C-alpha cells in the first residue's frame, strides 16, 4: 500500500479513526510521518492517541537503529523499576517516575510529537516549588537578555544581566 500523503513510498504507519461509528483509515510513510510529526495526532482526529503511541515510540527507535545511532549500545533501562526502553515502547506506559530520567535522551522527540512541546510551564507543587519558580524566572530573564542583545539594547541588557546575577547568588545561597 502506498502512502496517502506523497503517493510514492510504501505506507508503514496505519491508523484508524472512528467518528459516529464511521471508520476512516490513514496510511502514511515514515518520511511523511516524520515531516508532519506533530501533525499526526491532529490528522487522526477522533481516534485514541494511545493506540498510536506505541507506534510512534517504536518508529523513533527504528529510526535511530537504522541511522546507526543505536548500534552497540546497551539497551536503555530504568535502574529503579527495571523497565527497558523497548518494554516502554510496547506498553506505551512508564513503569515509574525514574523512567523519565533514564529514558530522558529519547523522550524529547516523543513529547514533541504528542504535545508539540517538551517542558512543563504549568502548576508547581506548593512545597518545594519555590526553587522551581526562581529557576523559571531566571530562564525567562536569560531569554530576554538574549533578545535585548540581539536588538542592541545594551543598557537594558546590562541591567538585566545584573538582576540575573543577583537572583543566581540568592538561589545558590539558599
Amino acid at each position, binding site marked *: 500500500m502506498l502512502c496517502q500523503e506523497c503517493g510514492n513510498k510504501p505506507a508503514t504507519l496505519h491508523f484508524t479513526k472512528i467518528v*459516529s461509528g464511521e471508520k476512516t483509515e490513514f496510511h502514511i510513510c515514515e518520511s511523511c510521518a516524520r515531516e508532519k510529526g506533530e501533525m499526526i495526532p491532529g490528522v487522526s*482526529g477522533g481516534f485514541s492517541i494511545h493506540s498510536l503511541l506505541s507506534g510512534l515510540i517504536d518508529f523513533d527507535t527504528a529510526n535511530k537503529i537504522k541511522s546507526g545511532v543505536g548500534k552497540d549500545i546497551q539497551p536503555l533501562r530504568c535502574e529503579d523499576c527495571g523497565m527497558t526502553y523497548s518494554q516502554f515502547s510496547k506498553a506505551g506506559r*512508564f513503569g515509574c517516575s525514574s523512567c*523519565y530520567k533514564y529514558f530522558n535522551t529519547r*523522550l524529547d522527540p516523543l513529547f514533541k510529537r504528542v504535545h508539540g512541546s*517538551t517542558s512543563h510551564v504549568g502548576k508547581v507543587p506548593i512545597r518545594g516549588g519555590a526553587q*522551581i519558580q526562581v529557576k523559571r524566572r531566571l530562564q525567562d530573564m536569560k531569554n530576554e537578555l538574549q533578545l535585548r542583545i540581539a536588538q542592541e539594547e545594551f543598557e537594558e541588557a546590562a541591567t538585566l544581566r545584573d538582576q540575573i546575577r543577583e537572583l543566581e547568588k540568592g538561589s545558590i545561597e539558599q
Partner: protein
Amino acid sequence: MPNLRFTEKALSDWMLGNANDSDIAISSRVRVARNLQHIPFPLLATSEQSMEVLDRLSDMEKYDSLKSLGTFYMLPLDDIAPLDRKVLVEKHLISPSLANESEHGAVILSEDESISIMINEEDHLRIQCLYPGFQVREAWEKATVIDDIFEAHIDYAFDDTRGYLTSCPTNVGTGLRASVMMHLPALVMTQQINRILSAVSQVGLTVRGIYGEGSEAVGNIFQISNQITLGQTESEIIDNLHSVVLQIIEHEKNARERLLKESKLRMTDRVRRSYGILSYAEMLDSKEAAQRLSDVRLGMDLGIIEGTSTSVMNELNVMTQPGFLQKTFGEAMNTEERDVYRAKLIREKLSPQQH
C-alpha cells in the same frame, strides 16, 4: 451503606443543577493525574506497594480539609459487587480500568457524586470533578483545590522540566484532562459535524464518543477534550477548550435555527415519531434508544415536545445502559430481554399519567 446509594439512582445529584447552555453542553469534567514519589506506577507496583499507596491516599483524617467541600465516602473496589462497579462506570464516577484492572483500587466519592477521587487507577491518584452544563472553569478550580489538599501531605512525583510525572506519556506535565460532553444533533443532521471535528483536532483537542477510548459516539453525544498536557499552562488548556466549545455551541445553535426555518415540518415529524416510538415500543436496542432519545432531547430544546425534561433525558441515558438495566430489573438478561426491559423503562419514564 453508601455503596448502594451510589448505584441505586441513575442521576447523580450534581446533574440536577441548572447551568448555562445545558441544552447543548450536557456536562463538564476535569481530571487531574498525580503520582507519589518513590513508588512505581500501578502498572508495576507490587501488591504491598499498592496497599501503601491506598493507605496513604485514603487516610481521611489526614485530608480533613476535604470536609469543607462536603461529605465523602471511601469505597474500596474489592467491596463493590461487579454489577455495582459497572453502574459506577455507566455514571462516569469511575473509569472502566479502575473497575476491572486495578489492584487495591478505591474511590473516594462526594455525597452529590460531583467529586470522584480514584486511587490506584493508571496513576496513583486521579481527581475528577463533574459539573452540569458548560462549567469547565469551575471544574478546574475545584480540582486544583483538592489537588492542594493532597499535596499538603504527599510528595508528588514531579520534575522541574517535565512537570507532574504520569504513567502515560500523554498525561505528563499538567496531568490535566478537561472535557465537555456535547449533544450536537443539528450538526450531525446538516452534515457539518466531520468538518467541525477535524477543525477541533487541529487545535490540540480530541473528540470521543460518550464512553471514551475507542467507543462510538452514541446518540449524537460527543466529548471534546484537550489532547496536549505539556507545554501549556492549566489556564491556557482550559481557555482553549472553553473558546472552542463556545464556538461549537454557536454552530449547533445556528444549525438548529436553520433546520427549524428550512425544514420545520420534517423536523417536527422526525422528533414526534421518535417520541411516539419511545412511548409505545415493546423492544428497543441500545442504538435505536440512543438515537430516539437524542431526537426527543432536541425536540424538547426546540419547544416541539413538552411534558418531559432534560433531567429525564439525562437519567434515561444512564438507565438504558446494560449494567443499570440489570441492576433495575435484577436478573441476568440476554439481548432480547434487555431490549424489552429497556423499552419498558423508557415507556414508564416518558408517560406522564403513569401510576
